């Protein structure tokens, strides 16, 4: 499947929508840094996982005894 992410298009549009100001001088570096994240994200999105695998950050509340 072709990678659907286009960092050059996504970064300025998502930043504007999220209220993040990226200076023209930084835009290339941010786009490049985001492209790295998109590349590694594609790797983990393609890693086959059993459906029952739950997040590592599983929160288990205590019974309040320690409060």
């Amino acid at each position: 499947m072709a990678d659907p992410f286009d960092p050059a298009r996504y970064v300025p549009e998502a930043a504007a929508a999220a209220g993040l100001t990226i200076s023209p001088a930084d835009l290339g570096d941010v786009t490049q840094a985001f492209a790295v994240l998109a590349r590694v994200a594609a790797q983990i999105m393609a890693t086959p996982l059993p459906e029952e695998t739950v997040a590592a950050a599983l929160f288990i509340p205590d019974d309040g005894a320690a409060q």
Partner: protein
Amino acid sequence: MTRQTARELASAVRSGERSATAVIEQTLAEIAARDGAINAFTAVTKERALAAAAAIDAAIAAGRNPGPLAGVPFAVKNLYDVAGLPTIAGSHIDRHRPPAAHDAALAQKLAAAGAILVGALNMDEYAFGFSTENTHHGPTRNPHDPARIAGGSSGGSAAAVAAGLIPLALGSDTNGSIRVPAALCGVFGLRPTIGRLSRAGMRLFAASIDVGGPFARTAEDLALAYDAMQGPDPADPASAARPPEPTLPVLSRGIEGLRIAVATGYYASQGAPEAFAAVERVASAVGAKERIELPSPGAARAAAMIMTSVEGAELHLEDLIARAEDFDPRTRARFLAGALAPGVWYARAQRVRRWYCGEMAKTLANVDVILAPVTPYPAFPIGQAWMEHAGQRLPAAGHLGVFTQPLSFAGLPTVAAPVADCGPLPLGVQIVAAPWREDLVLRTAAAAEALGAVASPSPASIEVPGR
């Protein structure tokens, strides 16, 4: 240059051979005279150090036990709270924060053991880097070649110990920030199991991966500091409810009977031949013949990068929106990119982590200790942005974490130990074990040190180019 170990200094102070005040006065004089060449310190806490030394001397004079680290000077990465100082975490933005009211928990524990805080140490901004080329505070220079990086993000901690300014320092490690600078500066560093040491009073970077830990010039000093800092702490939600498990009493047990394997495949590629040769020399010395392929390091590193970027960006989102221009140019783009990452990436990274840790647990059921390189190459010149390797153009600093990131993602305790006889530029070996087995990694490091396979080299006299 002072090369006495923490144990030797504490022994001299406890026996009355030297006063704590004399030790601290000499340390402060050494820092004043020599830190300018490496730029490890961002603050020196002279008055409180001298007051603490006087208190140790008074305790000894009164016949009280001054603690196992009596009079030992130490310093902390400047993301640790130090009472009276703003906790800047390598930033410009936080210079005007209110001063910390208390020392961080680990600094308090070292002080309770008799150690004396002498200052705060340079780092990459908000711990997001592997080189300590900090634009606001200047780069920390490698004591073995001041034209080269010290590694990061705890570069000040490693450099100060390597230069002999202090025998102990504290740093933090998310993806390699203790292990990388330890290796490049030629000192020992311990990344403990996540949950083992309290993070209360530390400015975190990526809370689900961060740990604090010590640097030293011997495995014994590492164990001495680590033991003094153990114990649960309700002030840190990630602190495990485990009693201290002292390692010093078992440090000299050696490696007889331990199943030690060398990580191969991923961990034997993507780097310079000397990095792998260094690991092989240690393996040969400790009799490790087995080779082991660890599961999915590439996916683990990828997931660690997503979690780190997103958690770091979330912590600093308010400043990224209001004043992005005040971030270090070396971190700004990466923080902004993390702020834009879709949530599904983060959720997937969390699930990958669960699966990966299960796979690592299966591997660790068949082996006690794993050896792997710390970095793919030794320290590179300050300012170098790219590294050519096997026809690939890699980010010189970013690629330093290629071997550390997958292992910390599983939360495994790891000693980074300096491999002996590496030439002018140090290299390190990671000594890794199952969660909560700090005893095994410290024992193996001590045994390798006794065999002469790992040792912290003394830098030649330091001259900064162009000064």
